[in-house]
């Protein structure tokens, strides 16, 4: 390890953290603007042109707010919980490549911090650490509502993490590697969203539950739990929890873009043109930014559309629909990969989307039947 390499790593890490922190600030503005437009309002527009200084105003307000601590709170854990929540949200993006290798002055710069050969496993493990922060925040506040918010969050995360992890397995099977750069390179010909349409849908649903976004925002259900696990938090500690939530959104969207939507690779209609990442590598970060932007819009859009679902139904959906379906998907994917290998015909891989869509349809019809049966029982 030379000094130059060390400096390069430090610069990349600092850039990533800065991007995530400013990204958090502007994600709040983006969300408020998009929600406002959906509700036929204009959103924040007072601080600076089009409200672009609004995040700064929010930050200044939060810094100067009084920090309250409940009298009988666990002081140390109460202090640590926001940090424990935020740190995984930041470090999870370390394995996400945001561009191909750049060659500058005969020196190769890789556009990722670490290319772990079990990158997907790293993501899974770090993502599950974040829940500790939330449950500790709920527990240390010594408040019933906060406690219930924390517990709900844990139960929800454990349930949906399984579906999330299993939806990763399909990608790993197709790419033949758990390394993020390998997965991106494997999507050169076709994005995995085409080969794994149902897996992508499961991933998107499970991520909503994983980052506690509406309609799965049970841990902070305002109507039932005031604010859930961050009821007792104020000032900068609240800002940290808030930041963790939005950074997790960014992180999970960047993972989704990498695993299913071709990562930093160009859009399909731009391949073999001058705009493809093979010819102009520095466009990689631009493409992944656009993809993250679109996925984030999807999250905001879903939040603006669907009401929060009941807690027992949330659990039932996770365990009884998503888990069996994702297991079936792994089986289908593995079968067709094996068939393609045996017959040396890679066209057989296109059986995966066909059969998995059929499986998805079957799942939908089973959900429909259950709903109908409940209606009859009620009538």
């Amino acid at each position, binding site marked *: 390890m030379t000094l130059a390499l060390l400096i390069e790593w430090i610069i990349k890490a600092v850039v990533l953290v800065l991007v995530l922190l400013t990204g958090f600030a502007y994600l709040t503005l983006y969300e408020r603007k998009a929600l406002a437009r959906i509700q036929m309002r204009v959103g924040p527009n007072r601080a600076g042109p089009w409200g672009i200084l609004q995040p700064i105003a929010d930050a200044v307000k939060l810094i100067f707010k009084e920090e309250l601590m409940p009298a009988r709170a666990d002081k140390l854990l109460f202090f640590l919980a926001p940090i424990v929540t935020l740190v995984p949200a930041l470090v999870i993006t370390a394995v996400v490549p945001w561009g191909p290798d750049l060659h500058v002055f005969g020196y190769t710069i890789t556009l990722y911090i670490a290319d772990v050969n079990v990158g997907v496993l790293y993501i899974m493990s770090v993502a599950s650490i974040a829940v500790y922060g939330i449950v500790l925040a709920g527990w240390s506040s010594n408040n019933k509502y906060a406690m219930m918010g924390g517990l709900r969050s844990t139960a929800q995360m454990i349930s949906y993490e399984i579906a999330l992890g299993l939806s990763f397995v399909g990608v790993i099977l197709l790419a033949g590697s758990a390394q993020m750069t390998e997965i991106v390179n494997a999507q050169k010909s076709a994005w995995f969203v085409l080969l794994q349409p149902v897996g992508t849908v499961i991933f998107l649903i499970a991520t909503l539950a994983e980052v506690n976004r509406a309609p799965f925002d049970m841990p902070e259900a305002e109507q039932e739990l005031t604010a859930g696990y961050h009821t007792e938090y104020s000032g900068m500690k609240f800002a940290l929890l808030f930041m963790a939530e939005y950074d997790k959104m960014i992180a999970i969207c960047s993972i989704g873009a990498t695993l299913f939507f071709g990562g930093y690779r160009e859009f399909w209609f731009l391949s073999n043109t001058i705009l493809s990442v093979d010819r102009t590598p520095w466009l990689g970060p631009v493409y992944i930014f656009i993809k993250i932007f679109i996925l984030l819009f999807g999250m905001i859009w879903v939040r603006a559309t669907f009401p929060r679902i009941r807690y027992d139904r949330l659990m039932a959906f996770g365990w009884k629909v998503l888990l069996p379906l994702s297991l079936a998907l792994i089986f289908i994917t593995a079968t067709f990969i094996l068939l393609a290998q045996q017959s040396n015909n890679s066209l057989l891989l296109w059986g995966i989307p066909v059969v998995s869509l059929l499986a998805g349809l079957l799942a939908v019809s089973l959900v429909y039947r259950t*709903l109908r049966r409940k209606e009859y029982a009620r009538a």
Partner: protein
Amino acid sequence: MRVLEPLIELVRGLWTTLRFMFEKPVTVQYPEHKKPVKARFRGRHVLHRYENGLEKCIGCSLCAAACPSDAIFVESSENTDEQRFSPGERYASTYEINMLRCIFCGFCEDACPTEAITLGDQYELSFTERSQAIYPKEMLIEPVPSGGKPTPQKTEPGTFTRSVPEMKDPQD
């Protein structure tokens, strides 16, 4: 394809919200643009004057009596021909409305025998201290119309002999 109903419902919900993104926002940029209020809007009270500048209020305190929240305080004094404020026998030497108590019901304008008090279209009533919530007569009374003279006026003796001036039937 009734089996697909749950999916179709979800997509329809998403389509509805997406459609509204392209509607024109209904927001009014408030301090810069103000929407005109409706004709019968009940805003801050206004004490009116006659064209010659005399005050319509004769200090009868009927508004204070009608007020359900006891927001109005009236103290009346005698008019003289040397110092005449209103065409009646008396005038309101103190007229105060506590805007924290007022519920803008409009009973005061109904009770007024001379149409002296009406609820106008001013609605920007913020203040920073409780004492500022009490609006004295100087804030409520409208300015002297052109051609009129400010009160108190000096008038010819024998012009104003009635305790309540003669009134036409209300218009509105």
